[in-house]
C-alpha cells in the first residue's frame, strides 16, 4: 500500500514527534481544550462541562457521517433549496 515512496502515517507521526497511534475518537479531554486554545477562546469549568456533554452526543454520529460513502454523490452546483434538485 505504501509503494510510492510516501511515508506511512506512523513514520510521519514519528518525524513530527507525534504518537504513531492517535485516537480517532478525539476524546473531549484533548480535543476541546486544544481546539479552544488554538483559537484563543477561553472557557471556564461550566463551559467545558457543557462542551463535553455536547461533544459526547455529537462526536460519534459525526464520525459516522464522515464514514458515509458519498463518493458517488455529484454535488449540486448553486442548489436552489426552494425546488427539487435538477
Amino acid at each position: 500500500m505504501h509503494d510510492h515512496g510516501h511515508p506511512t502515517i506512523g513514520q510521519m507521526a514519528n518525524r513530527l514527534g507525534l504518537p504513531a497511534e492517535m485516537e480517532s475518537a478525539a476524546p473531549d479531554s484533548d480535543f476541546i481544550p486544544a481546539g479552544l486554545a488554538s483559537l484563543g477562546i477561553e472557557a471556564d469549568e461550566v463551559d467545558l462541562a457543557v462542551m463535553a456533554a455536547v461533544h459526547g452526543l455529537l462526536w460519534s454520529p459525526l464520525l459516522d457521517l464522515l464514514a458515509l460513502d458519498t463518493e458517488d454523490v455529484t454535488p449540486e452546483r448553486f442548489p436552489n433549496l426552494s425546488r427539487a434538485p435538477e
Partner: protein
Amino acid sequence: MGLRAQAAAIAAGEVDAAELLDATLERIEQRNPALNAVVETFPERSREMLAAAPEGPLRGVPIVIKDEWPLPWRAQRFGAAQLLAPTAPGESGPYRALRDAGAVIVGVGNMHELGAGSTGNVSVYGAARNPWNTERCPGGSSSGPASSVAGRLVAGAVGADGLGSVRFPAAYCGLTGLKPTFGRSAMEGHHMAPVTTLIVSGPLCADAADCRLLGSVLFGEELAAGDAAGLRIGIVRNQVSEDVTPEVGKACEEAIEALSAEAGGTVKEISLPDLEAATLAAILIINSESMGGTRPEQLNQLDPELSPIARGTLKYRMLLPAAATVQATRVRTLTRRRLAALFAEVDVIAWPTIPAPAPPLEAPLVELPSGTQTADQANVRGAALANLTGIPSISMPVGLSGEGLPIALQLQAAWGRDELLLDAAEALERANARRWVEALPPLAAAEPTEA
C-alpha cells in the same frame, strides 16, 4: 374567534377593529402572567398600525410575532441576553408583509434562547408556558407565538423554523403550524442572517384554514385551497415513527388511516435511508452557518446572563470540523435526490411531529421505548429533514394524551406543495370532525371572553 373569523367580521363591519385590539390587549394582560408568551406589547404602536392599516386580508387583526425579527420601534433580542451580531430596530420582511396586509402587531412572542431548543424552557425572559399545562414546555423555539395562540391571546402568530421551531411548539400546544418551502415566506431582516439555507418564517394558528390565510400573507401570494383527493401517503418504518410513546404512535396511525379514508387516498410504506445522517447534516450546517462572521475573541466576552448551555454551545460550534460540514452538504444533495424520487411515488410523507407530548419545564426529558432522552435529542430527528432539503412540512393536532397534552402528526410534501399540505390538514380536520383543532386548553376554556 379564529383568525379568518376575525378578519371576516372586521371586513363585514360586524366587529370594530379598535375594540378588537383593546380586547386583545386586555386578554394578554389577563392571561399572559400565567403563560409568559408575550414579552412586550406596545399599545400605541399597535394603534398606529391600525390607524394606518390598508384594506387587506388581515385588516385590523392582531398578530404576535416572534422575537426573531426587528420591528421599526424595537430590535429583536432572540430570546437572549446577548447577541453576537448587532441589532437595531427596522422593517423586516414579516413586518412588511403583516403591515401591508393590514394586520396589527400586538406583541412580541417569547422564544427559546438563541433559537437553540425545541422546548422553550430557556429564555432571557423566563420560560414561556404551555396553556395545556403551565408546568409543561410549550415547545421551541417559537414558544411564545405558540403559547399565545393556544392560550387564545391572539388567533395567529408568526414563528420561524430552522430545525423544527414552528412545528415543535405547534405540536406541544395543539396548534397547526406550517414550515414553508424554503424561500417562499418573508424572511428579510431575520436575526440569523448568516444562516442562509435552513430557516423560514411560518404561521402558527388553531387550524389549517387560518394557517392558509396567515401563510398567504407571509408568502405574498394566495395559497389557493384545493382538495387532497386521492392523496398518496408515504409512511416510513424507522426511529421517527416507531420510537415514540404508545399514545403518540396510536394517535398518529389512526390519523393517517382517517386522512387516507377522507381523501380516498392510499397509504404506502416507503424507505428513506440515512435519515440519521440527514438529521446530523442539518444540525452541522445550521451550527456552522450560524457562526459565520463570528470572531473567536467575541466568545471571550459573552454576557454572564447567557445560559451556560448557550455559552458552551457557542464555543463548541467553533470547533466543528469543516470536513464534516462539507460532508453534510453532500448528504443534503443525496437526501434531496432521494426525496425527489420518493415524491414521484407519494404526495406526502407522514410521521409523528414529536415522539412524546410536552415534557416538564423543569426537566425536559422524554421516556421512549429506546429509553430516556432529552426532548431536544428526540424531537429533532423527525424535523430536520424538511429544513435540510427545503421541503414544506406541516404539524397538526391529532389527539390528547392521557395527561391531557396534545399529540401531533407531521406531513411533508415536495417543494412548492405547501398548498397540498394545507389541503391535507383540512381533510384530516373533516375526518375527525375538527375535534382536535377546536379543543381548548383549560386556561383558554376557563374564561368565556372569546373576542
